[in-house]
């Protein structure tokens, strides 16, 4: 086992500032944050961290080291904000209020900002997948929760395999110092829980879905882990649930799906209302009512449940906490706008979009009529400037289930084109550039409910617009 003494975390004296000076820098950054929030211009979720990290590059490690309780770090391509929100709700039910970067600002400065604000003696940090290897030693987590790796914003992160390799090195280096909660159903994640000889690493909890009825009929096009990371042999999939998450075998080297310690059985999806399932854990079985929809959120809940058990939250409080969960910012929320329900669901990559499309397919079935949609595709840096991904998402699912769709955003025509080639009737597709005008037209044309599917920066625009109209709280609050 690795010796724990050889920490690579920066310390005072190694280029950092002395204790008094450091405290002054933290206080100054905190004051700037308060000022920026009061001025209402936003940016309060990252600005203090940015300032402090510029003044004291070792600040993250120094601040994290002050936390006396457990430090939990959550990362994934999809669902990290939601999983962290679920775990926060469960901890809250247990009367625990961790330091938590709850605004979804998940790069170094967002985490630093949460630490500057302080307010607890344990930590709960959602960390961007590319930032994880860079700041994991600073945060020195006692528990690391890894949900999934999907293709996402390849213009920012390079290729998926490189990221998986970096994560593998991170886990290997932290074994013995950190506990792990890993998704058994994602081969890229599950394999991190075993060493070169397929021996299960110390301190690993695997989670997964054990309900064959939830499998998709055929593998989706955006399928990210066809070949074994170890030996290159194609995985044999017994079934897939979400993208490449499922039950698989490696015929080459035997790196099969590990049996999960925490698993969901008897899953019932209830459209946009949410889902119900039974979770089986080493401590027993629990019936969970999850008020946010989609099988992908069952995975997020399993990650939160497995983490909560590792954090010694009493069993009965886990259920209560999850029942009170609200969807994370823009991940399924419904707002009343002019007598209609506006249901907002973020789309940002093929795997996530496919799950939103599956939920909408259920909604269309329940409604027994075509649904009204508004899709906004932006190509800002936070969206991924490369919009190629829309051709990997299975918009075909809704081809004959849509009454009208309005396309908006900087690449409105590109998404309209994708829908046309997915078989959506062109006389039901409308294109407009501006977010506000297009949303108003879509609302005016809609029945009781309009489903809004924005990419990240379009979601920010939408929320700002709704806030200006007094319909939704601004996101940094």
């Amino acid at each position, binding site marked *: 086992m690795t010796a724990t003494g050889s920490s690579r975390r920066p310390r005072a004296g190694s280029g950092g500032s002395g204790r008094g000076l450091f405290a002054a820098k933290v206080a100054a950054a905190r004051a700037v944050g308060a000022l920026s929030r009061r001025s209402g211009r936003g940016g309060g979720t990252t600005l203090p961290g940015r300032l402090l990290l510029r003044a004291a590059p070792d600040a993250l490690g120094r601040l994290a080291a002050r936390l006396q309780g457990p430090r939990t770090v959550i990362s994934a391509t999809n669902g990290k904000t939601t999983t962290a929100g679920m775990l926060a709700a469960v901890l809250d039910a247990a009367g625990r209020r961790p330091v938590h970067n709850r605004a979804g600002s998940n790069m170094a400065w967002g985490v630093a900002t949460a630490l500057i604000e302080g307010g607890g003696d344990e930590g709960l940090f959602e960390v961007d997948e590319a930032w994880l290897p860079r700041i994991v030693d600073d945060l020195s987590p006692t528990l690391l929760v890894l949900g999934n790796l999907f293709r996402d914003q390849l*213009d920012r992160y390079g290729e998926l*395999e490189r990221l998986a390799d970096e994560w593998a090195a991170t886990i290997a280096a932290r074994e013995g110092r950190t506990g792990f909660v890993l998704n058994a159903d994602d081969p890229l994640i599950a394999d991190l829980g075993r060493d070169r000889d397929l021996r299960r690493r110390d301190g690993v909890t695997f989670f997964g879905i054990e309900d064959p009825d939830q499998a998709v009929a055929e593998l989706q096009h955006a399928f990210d882990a066809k070949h074994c990371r170890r030996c290159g042999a194609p995985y044999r999939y017994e079934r897939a649930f979400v993208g490449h998450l499922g039950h698989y075998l490696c015929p080459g080297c035997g790196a099969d799906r590990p049996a999960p310690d925490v698993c969901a059985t008897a899953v019932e999806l209830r459209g946009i209302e949410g889902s119900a399932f039974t979770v089986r854990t080493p401590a027993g079985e629990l019936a969970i009512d999850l008020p946010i929809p989609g099988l992908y959120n069952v995975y997020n809940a399993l990650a939160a449940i497995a983490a909560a058990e590792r954090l010694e939250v009493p069993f009965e409080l886990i259920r209560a906490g999850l029942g009170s969960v609200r969807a994370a910012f823009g991940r399924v929320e419904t707002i009343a706008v002019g007598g209609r329900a506006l249901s907002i669901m973020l789309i940002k990559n093929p795997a996530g979009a496919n799950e939103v499309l599956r939920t909408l397919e259920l909604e269309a079935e329940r409604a027994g009529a075509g649904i009204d949609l508004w899709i906004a595709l932006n190509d800002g840096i936070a969206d991924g400037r490369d919009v190629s991904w829309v051709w990997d998402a299975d918009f075909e699912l809704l081809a004959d289930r849509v009454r009208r769709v309005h396309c908006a955003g*900087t690449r409105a025509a590109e998404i309209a084109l994708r829908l046309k080639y997915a078989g959506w009737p062109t006389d039901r597709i409308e294109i407009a550039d501006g977010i506000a005008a297009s949303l108003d037209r879509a609302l005016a044309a809609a029945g009781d409910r309009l489903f809004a599917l924005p990419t990240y920066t379009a979601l920010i625009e939408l929320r700002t617009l709704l806030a200006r109209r007094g319909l939704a709280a601004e996101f940094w609050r």
Partner: protein
Amino acid sequence: MAELRLLTLYPEQMNIYADRGNVIFLERRCRWRGIGFSSAAAGIGEGFDPDEHDLIYIGGGQDRDQRMVAADLVATKRVAFAAALAGGAAALAVCGGYQLLGTSYELGGERIEGLGIAPLHTVREPGPRLTGNVSIEVDLGSGPRILAGFENHGGRTYIDAGGVPLGRVLHGHGNNGRDGREGIVLGNLLGTYLHGPLLPKNAWLADELIARAIARREGRRPELRPLDDRIEDAAHAGAIRAAERTRA
């Protein structure tokens, strides 16, 4: 009835940037015109009959997959690929697939042999990946047109003596970020760094490939029936604008 017979090479490995968008686009545009469409695939270890395909497509992949594909291309498909081109088939190679057309490319300090059917080679140079929206001016014999899309490549490609680039960079990086050249054209073989679903953003190129592929079997270039391309044209204009917004 005219028919387009498409062959996709390594759809399992070389699909990283939603390359299937190109296949969907070709298929729909053929069907809307009453042109038959058939699609076949050749993966690792599989050969193909050069006479049975009129359009060959190869997309981009991750490093590990691309290494595997490079060895397999040379071992099992080089002869058939060359024979298909000699017989008049059209081919489109994108991103990683484009690099593989050349004599060699570098991966992690290692020089890997390519197909060697186009006069180009790809090297690594210090500096960042060449990433962003890109537009190039292309003339395939019917006057200048714009091709717009997205590029994301670590390798730098240089065209060797006698080679002709596909186009001239208007905005973005192109082959190597230095010489203003993008892609390669060699008869009916087109290679480009504009990756993933570039045909949906450039319907004119999709139709050009359909016409060339059909001409191979019919013996003459067909008149393609015009389609209602209002959304296609808007997406093309959107991609051009996105490239114009990028610096360089």
